């Protein structure tokens, strides 16, 4: 293994362990606190250096390491190369440890006199992750590596991950995971120290931080899926997605529970449980997605990656510690007393917290369904996305109404002065709901949903304005967030259920109307050899706006994987979403006939006379990087001036291609070089699209015949009279009886030395020719191709593109709502961090 890297991980582990022990000792004597901190800092430094090393090894393409070979290659641009750090399991855990350890530095700074105990638990969480890294070392070499076996290139990054979002989404996600460990540590410390109320003051800023980071990470993931992956959505209820949503829901419940506890001294026990559950769900989610239990049920998780045992141990350990502390202190925790009327902030908070937790539990149950159903079904089953939508809808409606009502409620009752405002807002809601119904929202459930979402938006929006006008903007955080959430709720419905979708085939240069837009496919564009093939689609809207979309389909050379990327046009009220499904390259017109000429020779085809005049090697820069050989051909037709054409053969690294040239005066007629022998000076020219084609291509057995336009061809059976393999003669004949134009003749095709003779003209048929294709001697059959020069030519097929076109009404509101929600949480964080200063730093352990 790469010794410095692995050693650093061990060093980090030892320092972490030392820090934990020192903090435990500091409970007896304060002198131990400084060494504990120092040990922690050293652990963090070791982690930082180890991470730096891994990054260095990736950037310098050190393929001795298994990890570097598995996830990177020489051709990755810098930003994706950086992101390969977290492309694999070991690297992503290292990233998690890095985020956790750095975050811990701030925790030491701000945890006041909770520090020792909080850090004991926090250290344990970090150590549990480092143990995974020790078990699956990111720095290990390939097994049995010798000097000669170092790969020259890596296997590369999965093409679906080669995307700017890969650079940002995972780091934010792991920061969020790391942040959820902090309320967990505080809750356990609070239980230990019997500080059942004060801990919320110290912890609330951290809770907000987790909400912000996890929430941002979740939505970044959704945006990535929408913008890049081509299945048209941003949330699939896949286990990995749910795994990050559930901790977020519990943490959101916790944030509200803490406010409730501060305002009304309620939910003390619940908050402790919620804080512990937040991190426990992170651990459980890690177990679900990396142990292989869901391998058959998700695209994100695969086979057992070797750490299942550790993950189970992790879960068991922390669960037992938490349960122990809870049981120990349960009876001491003061109970609740309170007598608020129903219409008070208190009651709504209580129900709201329960609902958030209920949603979290439902999502957990759904995600764990393969595990649960194993209990009573012989083969595990999973629930589809429909389950989550169905269960979430009523919850979302209730929460929407609650969010809307909160600005009108104080902890103990309604705010009398706000009654007029309520009436005004309800009226506005009614109006907007009517508008929504007019615009197409029909199902009663959806109407109620829209009402709830709009109510939430208007009510909180108004409250925000009132507060800003009063200069109380710092306290407006919650309302800004709720405004954002209301907007998101509305957008979830419209974008998800009210979009329209259609699949169409666009033929090149033919404008086609879809969903009200006119789309024209203009061909494939590849600006540089490394660029991804972009399909150029011009769009014009019913209002006359014009723009170009470029969905992409490209093949990743390493994995031979075809990847499709959509392109999206954002309008104010909707998005136009275009995803490529299939691309069909143009098909040339069929061959009408061919002539073989030596230099200077002329031959007739239909009413043309073709003369081969010579080769032309002068146009070598026609195609960069290729050898171009031109063939000069003169065409003459009675009554028209002779014309000189130059079809060519282009030879590149990828092969040889014949370039056809249009024949002027015809529609779709082309001439192409079919083959050439430069030393003998012979060229075979093919004429395309001039009429005629293979009329029949059938397999006939002995005695069977084919009939076409007055011509009847019967296969008489193989004539093996000359066939004597022992004497070295493997020639045989294929005789046909042909009736055409009232006459019957015999046509015999000869097979000499394995080669079949060429096409033979059928007398009396008006120029039809008979050719033999594949021969099945054992089965006694042969393929017959009948060429008819008078057959109408099949028109050449132009390129075409099949697209999935859909509209996503109001989807930009999802992202706008997210930004507002995050902004509000930042504002709240700003407000609450001041509270931490009021807690003493030392003493009172």
């Amino acid at each position, binding site marked *: 293994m790469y010794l410095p890297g692995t050693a650093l991980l061990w060093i980090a582990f030892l320092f972490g362990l030392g820090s934990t022990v020192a903090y435990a000792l500091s409970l007896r004597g304060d002198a131990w606190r400084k060494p504990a901190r120092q040990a922690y800092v050293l652990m963090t430094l070791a982690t930082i250096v180890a991470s730096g090393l891994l990054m260095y090894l990736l950037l310098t393409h050190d393929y001795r390491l298994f990890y570097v070979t598995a996830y990177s290659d020489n051709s990755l641009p810098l930003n994706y190369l950086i992101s390969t750090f977290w492309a694999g399991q070991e690297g992503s855990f290292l990233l998690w440890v890095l985020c956790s350890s750095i975050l811990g530095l701030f925790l030491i700074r701000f945890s006041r006199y909770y520090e020792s105990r909080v850090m004991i638990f926090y250290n344990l969480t970090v150590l549990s992750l480092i143990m995974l890294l020790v078990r699956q070392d990111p720095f290990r070499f390939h097994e049995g590596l010798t000097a000669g076996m170092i790969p020259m290139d890596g296997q590369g990054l*999965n093409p679906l991950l080669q995307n700017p979002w890969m650079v940002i989404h995972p780091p934010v996600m792991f920061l969020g995971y790391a942040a959820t460990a902090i309320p967990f540590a505080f809750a356990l410390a609070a239980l230990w120290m019997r500080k059942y109320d004060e801990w919320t003051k110290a912890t609330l800023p951290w809770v907000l931080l987790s909400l912000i980071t996890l929430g941002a990470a979740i939505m970044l993931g959704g945006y990535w899926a929408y913008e890049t992956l*081509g299945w048209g959505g941003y949330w699939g209820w896949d286990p990995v997605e749910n795994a990050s949503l559930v901790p977020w829901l519990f943490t959101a419940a916790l944030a509200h529970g803490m406010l409730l506890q501060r305002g009304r001294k309620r939910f003390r026990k619940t908050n402790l449980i919620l804080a512990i559950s937040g991190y426990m769900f992170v651990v459980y989610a890690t177990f679900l997605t990396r142990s292989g239990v869901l391998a058959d049920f998700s695209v994100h998780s695969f086979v057992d990656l070797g750490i299942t045992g550790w993950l189970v141990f992790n879960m068991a350990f922390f669960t037992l510690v938490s349960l122990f502390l809870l049981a120990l202190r349960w009876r001491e925790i003061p109970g609740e007393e309170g*007598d608020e009327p129903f219409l008070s902030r208190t009651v709504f908070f209580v129900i709201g917290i329960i609902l958030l937790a209920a949603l979290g539990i439902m999502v957990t149950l759904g995600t764990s369904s393969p595990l649960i159903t194993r209990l009573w079904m012989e083969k595990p089953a999973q629930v589809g996305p429909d*389950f989550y939508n*169905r269960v979430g809808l009523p919850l979302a409606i209730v929460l929407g109404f609650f969010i809307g009502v909160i600005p009108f409620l104080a902890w103990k009752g309604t705010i009398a002065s706000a009654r007029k405002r309520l009436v005004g807002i309800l009226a506005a809601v009614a109006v907007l709901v009517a508008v929504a119904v007019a615009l197409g929202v029909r199902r009663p459930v959806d109407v109620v949903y829209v009402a709830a979402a709009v109510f939430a938006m208007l009510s909180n929006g108004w409250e925000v304005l009132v507060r800003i006008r009063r200069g109380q903007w710092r306290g407006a955080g919650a309302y800004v967030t709720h405004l954002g959430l209301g907007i998101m709720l509305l957008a979830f419905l419209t974008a998800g259920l009210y979009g329209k979708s259609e699949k169409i085939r666009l033929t090149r240069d033919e404008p086609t109307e879809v969903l009200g837009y006119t789309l024209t496919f203009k061909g494939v564009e590849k600006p540089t050899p490394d660029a991804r093939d972009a399909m150029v689609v011009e769009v014009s809207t019913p209002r006359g706006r014009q723009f170009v979309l470029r969905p992409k389909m490209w093949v990743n050379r390493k994995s031979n994987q*075809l990847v499709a990327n959509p392109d999206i046009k954002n309008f104010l009220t909707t998005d136009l979403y275009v995803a490529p499904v*299939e691309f069909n390259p143009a098909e040339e017109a069929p061959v009408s006939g061919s002539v073989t000429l030596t230099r200077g020779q002329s031959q007739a085809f239909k009413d043309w006379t073709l003369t081969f005049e010579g080769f032309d090697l002068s146009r070598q820069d026609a195609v960069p990087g290729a050898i171009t050989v031109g063939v000069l051909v003169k065409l003459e037709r009675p009554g028209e001036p002779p014309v000189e054409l130059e079809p060519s053969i282009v030879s590149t690294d990828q092969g040889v291609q014949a370039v056809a040239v249009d024949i002027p005066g015809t529609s779709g007629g082309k001439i192409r070089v079919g083959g050439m022998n430069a030393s003998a000076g012979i060229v075979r020219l093919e004429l395309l699209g001039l009429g005629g084609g293979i009329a029949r291509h059938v397999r006939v057995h002995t005695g069977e015949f084919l009939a076409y336009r007055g011509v009847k061809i019967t296969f008489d059976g193989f004539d093996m009279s000359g066939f004597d393999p022992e004497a070295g003669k493997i020639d045989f004949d294929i005789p046909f009886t042909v009736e055409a134009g009232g006459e019957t003749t015999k046509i015999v095709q000869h097979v000499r030395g394995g080669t079949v003779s060429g096409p033979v003209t059928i007398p009396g048929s008006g120029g039809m020719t008979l050719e033999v294709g594949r021969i099945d001697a054992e089965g006694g059959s042969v393929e017959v191709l009948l060429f008819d020069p008078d057959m109408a030519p099949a028109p050449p097929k132009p390129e075409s593109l099949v697209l999935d076109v859909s509209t996503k009404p109001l989807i930009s509101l999802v992202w706008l709502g997210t930004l507002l929600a995050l902004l509000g949480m930042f504002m709240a964080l700003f407000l609450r961090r001041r509270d931490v200063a009021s807690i003493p730093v030392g003493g009172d352990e």
Partner: protein
Amino acid sequence: MSGNRMQRRLWYAVGGVLIVAFLIYGASSFKSNLTAYVSFDQAMATGHKVQVAGSLVEGSTRWLEDSQELAFTMVDENGVRLPVVYSGTKPGNFEEATQIVAIGSSRDGVFHAEQLLVKCPSKYQGIEGSEDGSEA
């Protein structure tokens, strides 16, 4: 005070009923949405929504122009074959998949997949590694 207490008890009762109703609704949604893993024969026998797993028969993928659907054949470990059609977006690494999971129901001798999950060779793909082709 006691008026308030009565009021509170009433609201708790209402809340309790709502929560129980919600739980029942959730449980029934859960059951009705369960898609079980079955063998190919069982999938063809029943018309219910089920999951099947298998690998792709090479070269069997084709695009049906008239119905705008993707058609392919899956084969399981016993060699049993299953014809599948799918009208969603083809998942990115379809042809290279080591295993495919199709969720849908069979009709008229063909398995109509609503969702396709494509399993890739052993790489851990990160958080948003792959996508599932599915209809909204």
